[in-house]
C-alpha cells in the first residue's frame, strides 16, 4: 500500500490561493455593496469605515498569498507528503503558481480602491 496524500489536504493545499482570492473578493465587494447600500443601518460598522476595511482585507490577502506563493515549505506542509514524491511535488508547484495567480487577482481588485472613491456612481 502506498501512503498517500489525503484528498481533503490536497484540495485544501491546491485551492488555498484561489480561496483567499475568493474570500477577499467576496469581502471587498460584499462589504462595499452592503455599506454603500445599507448606509449606516448596519451594526458595528459605518460607511466611514469602508477604506479601512478594504485596506485591511487587501493587505492581509496579499501577505497570505505572498507567503503561499514564495514558501514551498508552507504549501508543502498544507498538502502533506506522499510515498510518491513526484506527486507531492506536482501538487505543491501547482498550488504555488495558483497562489501567484491569485495574488495578481487581488492586486487588480486593489487597484480600484486606490483610484476610485467610496460609493459614488461617477456618471
Amino acid at each position, binding site marked *: *500500500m*502506498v501512503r*498517500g*496524500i*489525503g*484528498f481533503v489536504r*490536497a484540495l485544501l493545499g*491546491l*485551492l488555498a490561493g*484561489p480561496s483567499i*482570492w*475568493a474570500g477577499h*473578493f467576496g469581502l*471587498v*465587494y460584499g462589504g*462595499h*455593496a*452592503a455599506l*454603500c*447600500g*445599507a448606509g449606516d*443601518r*448596519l*451594526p458595528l460598522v459605518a460607511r466611514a469605515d469602508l477604506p479601512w476595511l478594504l485596506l485591511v482585507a487587501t493587505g492581509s490577502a496579499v501577505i497570505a498569498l505572498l507567503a503561499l506563493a514564495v514558501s514551498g515549505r508552507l504549501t508543502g506542509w498544507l498538502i502533506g507528503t*506522499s*510515498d*510518491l514524491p*513526484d*506527486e507531492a511535488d*506536482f*501538487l505543491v*508547484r*501547482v498550488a504555488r*503558481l*495558483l497562489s501567484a*495567480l*491569485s495574488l*495578481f*487577482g487581488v492586486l*487588480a*481588485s486593489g*487597484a*480600484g*480602491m486606490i*483610484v*476610485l*472613491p*467610496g*460609493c*459614488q*456612481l*461617477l*456618471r
Partner: protein
Amino acid sequence: MSDSGISATPRPAGERAELLRIWATPQGWRLPSAVNNTVIGLFYLGAAFAFFLLAGIVALLMRTQLAQGDATFLSQDLYNQMFTMHGTTMMFLFAVPAMEALGVMLLPQMLAARDLPFPRLSAFAIWAYVIGGAVFFSTIFYGLAPKGGWFMYPPLTLTAYQPGDNADFWLLGIGFIEISAIAGAVEIVVGVLRTRPPGMTLSRMPIFGWSMLIFAGMIIFAFPAVILATMLLEIERAFGWPFFTAARGGDPLLWQHLFWFFGHPEVYIIFLPAAGLVSMMVPTFVQTPLIGYRLIVVALIGTGFFSFGLWVHHMFTTGIPSLSLAFFSAASIAVAVPSGIQVFSWIATLAAGRERLRLTTPALFVLGFLFIFTVGGLTGIMVALVPIDLQVHDTYFVVAHFHYVLVGGMVFPLFATFYYWAPAFSRRALSERLGRWSFWLMFVGFNVAFFPMHLTGLAGMPRRVWTYPGDIGWDGLNLLSTIGAYILAAGVLVFVVDLVRNFRPGGGAGNVWNAGTLEWLPNDVYSTRSIPLVTGRYPLWDQPNLARDVEAGAHYLPDAPTGGRETLVTSTVEAEPQYVLQMPGAGWSQVLAATFTAAFFLLLTIKLVWIAAVCGVLAVLFCLVWAWGLDPGPARGKVAVGAGLTLPSYMTGPQSHSWWAMVVLMLVAASLYIAYVFSYLYLWTVSPEVWAPAGAAPLPPLSRPLVAAAAFLAGLGLIVVAGRSLPPPGQRGWVAPIALVVGACLLATAVATEILGHIEMGLEPQATAYAAMVFLAGALAGQVVAAVLVMALFVAARILCARTDRERRNSFDHTLQLARYAVGQSLFGLLLVHGFPRLVA
C-alpha cells in the same frame, strides 16, 4: 513480463465471452433501456447536435430578416421568440449538454473505466433532457415560445408584461438542464476522482479529466444560483410573491445578480472542457507530450475561480457604484491571464513536435479555434474595461465578441473532436476531403458573419432588435453578416453529409492518430479487456506493449469476479486500487422516472395540476424502484481482480463512491442555500423599510424558533439512534425503522412549526419581499426535509425487507448524511429569519 511489471500469464478461455454477455447493449426496441456510457453518450451528443442544427436554422432565419433595414420577412413577435429560443437552445440545450455528453462518452474511455460510477443516473438525466428539450423547442412552432430573451429579465417576464405560458416554458426548459447538469456533475466528480486506473495519479491524469473535474465543480457552485432564480421567478409568476417587484420591496436587479452569478461561469463551463479537448489533441498532432501541463492545470483551476468574480460585468450599466464595478473589471482582466497561458502552451507544444504539424481536418479546426478564440479573448478584454463596455454593452459588438468566444472556444473544438475521436467510436473515420471543405466554409463563413458585427455595434446597432431603419447606414455590414451566416451553415451542412456517409457506430477504427492516451486502447462494449496499470501521462507512448497486454487481460479486472457489471475504484490522489464497484446494468426504471419527471414539469406548465401531480408521484416511485436494486451489500466478500490483487466488492462510509455522490449533492444544496441567504441580505440592503419589525408583521416570540430548533435536533437524534440499532446482517428489526420514520416526521413537524408561526403573526408572502423571503426559507427547509422523509420511508422499508442492516448500510448512511445537512441548513435558517431583523432593528 510486460513493461508495467505485470505478468502476462494467459487468461482462461471464456472470460471475454462472459464480459461481452454482461456488458451487452440491449437491441431493438429495448435500446432506450441501455446504460453503457458509449451508447447513451452517443444519444446525448446526437440530441445536443440536433438542437445545435435547429437553433442554427433559427439563426439563419433571423439573419435573413436582418439582411436589410425595414425588412418584414419575420414579424416582430416571431423574431422576439426566435432570438430567445436561439440563445436558450444554444446555451442550455446544446452547449452544456454537448460538453456533458463528451464527458459521458470520453471520460470513462480515457480513464479505462468500464462505465461511469452511476450509469443509470446518466441515463435518467439524458432521457429527461431529450424529452423535455424536444417539447420545449417545439413551442416555437405554435407561437408559445418564450420571448423574454435567454436572460429573462423581470419585470418584463412577470405576468404583468408576459401573461401567457411562454415564459413558463422557458423556466421549464431550464429545469431539465438543471437536472441533467447536476446529475452530470455528480457522475464526473466521482468518476474522475475515484474511477481512474491504478497508477494514474493526479499528475498523470489526462488534461480532459482535469477540465471536466473543474467543469463539474463549477456546475456545483454556479447552477444553484440559477435554480434559485428560476424558483423565485416561477413563484412570483404563479403566486405573486414579490421578489422582483420594486413597489413591494423586491428588486429586478436581484434576478440579474443570481442569473449572471450562474451565467458568467456558464461561459467557462462551456469553454473549459473544450480547452481540455484541445490539450488532448495538440500533443497527438505533433507526437509530443504537452508543454506546460502543470501551467495548464493552474490555468484551468484559476479560470474556474476567477469566472465567479465576473458576474456584475454584465451589469456595468445598471448604476452600481464605480468601485464595485472596478472589482469586477479587475476579475474580468485577471481571467484573461489563464487563457493566455493555455494559448501559449498549445503554441509551444506545436513548436516542440517531433514532426511538423500536418494539416489534417481536426488540426485545421484546432488552428481555427486558436485564431477565433484569441480574437474573442482580446475583445473580451475590451468589454472588461468599464468605460468601453458602457458604449458597446448590449450592442452587436458584444454579439460579435461572445460568438467569437463561444463558437471559437466551443464549436470549433467540438468539430475538431468529432473528426479526431470519430475513429474511436465509428468503424470508419470521417472523410478528410469533406472535412476540409467543412472547415474552410465554416472558418470563412464565421469570420464574414461575425467580424463585421464589431463594426455594426460600434456604429450604434443594439442587440435584440427585429429591424432597423434602412437609412441609418447599417445595411452593408448586416448584409455581409447574413452572407457569412449562410456560408457557415453550408460548412455545417457538409459536415452533416460526411456524418451520414461515414459515421457507423461500433467497434472503432483503431488508434489511427497514434495517440498516447487510454481511449485509444483496443475496446469493446465492456470498454478495455483489462484495466491497465499506468506509469505516465501518455501510457500508450510510455508503455509500448500496453495495448497488447491490456487486450491479453494481463492487467486488472480481466474478468467479472462478482458476475455483474463492475469497475475499479481507486484513491483520489495516488490512484491506489481500493475496491470493486458493482454497478447496475440496463433497465427501464430510470427511463420511466425520466419520462414522468418530464411529464410532471410539462403538465405543470400548462396548468394541468392534478395529472402533473400523479406524474410527479410516479417519477418518485420509479426512482425508488431503481434505488431498491442498488446497495448490493458485502455478500460477495473479497474478490480477486487479477495481477495478484484481492479487493473488497462492497464499501461503506467515506470511502464509498455513493458517499461522495451525496457530498456533491449536499454541496449543490448548500450553494442553493447560500444563494438564498445572499438574496435575503441583498433585498434588505435595497428595501430595509419592508423588513420586520418596523415594516412588516412582528416576528413570532423567540419561544417559537426554539421549539422548532429542539424538534430538528430531536429528529436528528432519533435518526442517529436508528443507525445504532440497525439489525444484524440478514435479519429484520423494528426499532430502527420506527426511530427513522419518527425522526424524519419530527423534522417535518419542525418545519411546519416555523412556517405556521409566521402565518399566525399575520405575515402574508404576497405582501412584501421580506415576507416572501421568510416563507421561502421555510419552503427551502421543507424541500430538503421532504427528501429526507422519502428516503427515511424507503430505508425503513428496506430494513423491514432485510435489505439494509448493520453492514449493508449505504442507504441508511446517505439518509443520515442528508438529515444532518437538512438540520444544519434549517437551524441556520432559523438564525437568519429570527436573528437578523432583531440584530439590525
